[in-house]
């Protein structure tokens, strides 16, 4: 039978008599749902979760297409044939949403018992779908079948929706309490998304049908607003894909946004009336596809580069670990060898091995000195490595920095004088200057700086100063030595960093001395830096530490 009061639709779906909202609500929601679920399915066919998402989207699409047919078609046979599936689709959507949430939360398929229970819940709808209890007739005047639906069955379909909402809510709350923080965020996103979808979809559908049936509304247009719930659900799904790689899908935010935008612009074609607007929308549509394509390509390229960098960084970290363990192994072995030979030389000198000739004694003295230097170097490298890893435990106490410097100067005066250098002090305030730190390691710093100056100064003097102002104690070690070029300044406090010509002056330079100074001072919440006017113009090293008041 033909609904004689309504025009035949063109292109099967298009009828000027239906509200534009029908197309605007149905088509974007359907395309967006199918786009994301097909994308997820395509990227991971083997995952049950992705399959269930696709199933939900297909049922939803069947619903939208069916309602579109029911709204626009005028052949009662065909409309009734389609209408007979409405309750079934509603039931399937509810059950599959529950199934989907189970798999999402538990990361595994549900039990056979639960599947049988799902089938039992669907049974009334399945067995009554084709019978007059579901649909008994058709109203040709209104071109619908609302008057001939059996209310208990219709209500059962909606009840399944309500059951799904409550069931999912309970599952989510129960699982949320046991989940790890990262998964908690995913549960919230998924829970809010699916509950909003079910609420808007079933709520609006029931309300629209009920109000139309009792004559409060002229038609069931209200249910169309419920379809936007699917768009919201898909937004949440895409957030899960982008942020958490849910569904085992690598979807980038730009991709989701661009294609979402293209779908929305494309859907405008269905309710634009004027040719000018149609052309303008056409341009926007094509431009958004082209620009979107290039944007996605460029973002993908950038992401790929970032991922490569992350991978390189991981490789680098592995290499550093390997190098560290190698350094430890070598230095310990070397230190062990040095120590053994040191005791041999010391034994030769103190007569443990009997009387030695003066000539042999001279060689033993040289050997002992060389061993001491070797041990010192190995200690320097080992200490720097331990400091880097935070393995050094500082014994922090209030110490007299003034006194510590003076002790250090007196210890180094002999070696300075041996080189013909003079150490002057410029300690302005002779009062006690207290700092909070480890006296052993801070003395190491002062010694290192003074030794450095002695090594790199051929003639002239070294001036060690200390002043306290603005809550800081500033130690300075100035010399009239080789100076530092701008290029060398960059490597000065780096691991193994040495001046370009430093080896010419100091053959034993390891490049770890100043690096250790920097690490120690930083551990004491201070800072260290060097100043020089250039090569041959002397250098000045400064250490600044907070003063204890």
């Amino acid at each position, binding site marked *: 039978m033909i609904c004689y009061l309504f025009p035949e639709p063109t292109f099967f779906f298009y009828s000027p008599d239906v509200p534009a909202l029908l197309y605007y609500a149905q088509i974007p929601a359907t395309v967006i749902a199918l786009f994301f679920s097909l994308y997820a399915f395509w990227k991971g066919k083997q995952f049950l979760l992705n399959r269930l998402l696709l199933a939900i989207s297909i049922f939803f699409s069947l619903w939208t297409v069916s309602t579109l047919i029911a709204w626009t078609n005028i052949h009662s046979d065909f409309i009734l044939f389609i209408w007979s599936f409405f309750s*079934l689709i509603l039931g399937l959507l509810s059950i599959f949403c529950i199934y989907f949430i189970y798999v999402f939360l538990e990361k595994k398929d549900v039990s056979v018992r639960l599947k049988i229970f799902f*089938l039992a819940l669907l049974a009334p709808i399945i067995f009554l779908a084709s019978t007059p209890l579901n649909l008994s*007739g*058709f109203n040709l005047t209104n071109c619908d079948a609302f*008057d001939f639906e059996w209310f208990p069955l219709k209500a059962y379909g909606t009840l399944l929706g309500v059951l799904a909402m409550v069931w999912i809510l309970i599952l989510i709350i129960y699982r949320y309490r046991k989940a790890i923080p990262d998964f908690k965020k995913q549960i919230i996103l998924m829970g809010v998304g699916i509950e909003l979808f079910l609420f808007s979809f079933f709520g609006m559908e029931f309300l629209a049908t009920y109000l139309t049936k009792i004559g409060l509304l002229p038609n069931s247009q209200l249910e169309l607003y419920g379809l936007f719930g699917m768009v919201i659900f898909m937004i949440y799904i895409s957030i899960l894909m982008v942020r958490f790689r849910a569904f085992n899908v690598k979807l980038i935010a730009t991709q989701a946004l661009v294609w979402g935008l293209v779908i929305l612009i494309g859907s405008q074609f269905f309710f634009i009336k004027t040719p000018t607007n149609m052309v303008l929308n056409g341009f926007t549509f094509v431009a958004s596809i082209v620009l979107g394509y290039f944007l996605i390509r460029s973002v993908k390229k950038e992401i790929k580069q970032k991922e490569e960098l992350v991978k390189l960084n991981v490789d680098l970290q592995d290499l550093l670990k390997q190098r560290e363990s190698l350094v430890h192994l070598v230095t310990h072995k070397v230190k062990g060898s040095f120590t053994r030979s040191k005791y041999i030389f010391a034994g030769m000198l103190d007569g443990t091995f009997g009387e030695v000739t003066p000539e042999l004694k001279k060689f033993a003295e040289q050997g002992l000195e060389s061993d001491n230097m070797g041990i010192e170097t190995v200690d320097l490298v080992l200490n720097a490595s331990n400091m880097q890893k935070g393995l050094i435990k500082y014994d922090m106490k209030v110490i007299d920095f003034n006194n510590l410097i003076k002790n250090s100067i007196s210890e180094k005066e002999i070696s300075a004088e041996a080189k013909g250098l003079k150490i002057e002090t410029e300690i302005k305030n002779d009062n006690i200057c207290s700092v909070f730190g480890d006296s052993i390691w801070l003395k190491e710093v002062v010694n290192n700086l003074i030794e450095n100056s002695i090594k790199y100064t051929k003639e002239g003097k070294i001036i060690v100063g200390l002043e306290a102002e603005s809550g800081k104690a500033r130690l300075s070690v100035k010399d009239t030595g080789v100076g530092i070029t701008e290029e060398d300044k960059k490597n000065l406090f780096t691991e193994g960093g040495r001046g370009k010509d430093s080896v010419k002056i100091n053959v034993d330079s390891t490049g770890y001395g100043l690096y250790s100074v920097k690490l120690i001072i930083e551990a004491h919440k201070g800072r260290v830096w060097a100043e020089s006017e250039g090569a041959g113009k002397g250098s000045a090293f400064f250490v600044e530490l907070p003063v204890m008041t």
Partner: protein
Amino acid sequence: MEIRYIHFRENFFFYVLALLIIMIGIVSYYRFMVNHDYLVRYEGTCDPVTEKCFTGCEDDDCTEMFYYSEMVKYAPDLYRECGDDITDCEAASICLSEDRECSVDYCDVDLDDNICVIPVGKTDTSINDNIGSDEENLLQINETDNTI
């Protein structure tokens, strides 16, 4: 050669469901598309002079009215009598003896008072003696306005 086993136990839910949906599709198709096994409700013709008719408006401003009865017929009978279009089909507005299921509902003043048009002769009290033409021979009962 790789042998693939179908795990029925794992996928029985989907297989059973798919089978049932296909069955529903076949039965529904046969019922509605082939047998036309359903009732059809539509607006039948109604003579306001002799019958209690429902009234409807032709346009939004209700400048022109039309009168109808509510017909319910079994779709296969209607197909046999009128084809798939009941417009201009006289048989659609009456119940024939061979119709398996057929009913004509006229307007009930108690239920549908504000859209009923009742012929003068069928009312208990004569309200207007000046009515002459067929159109004027009608008594329209309206809840808000009880004038003719």
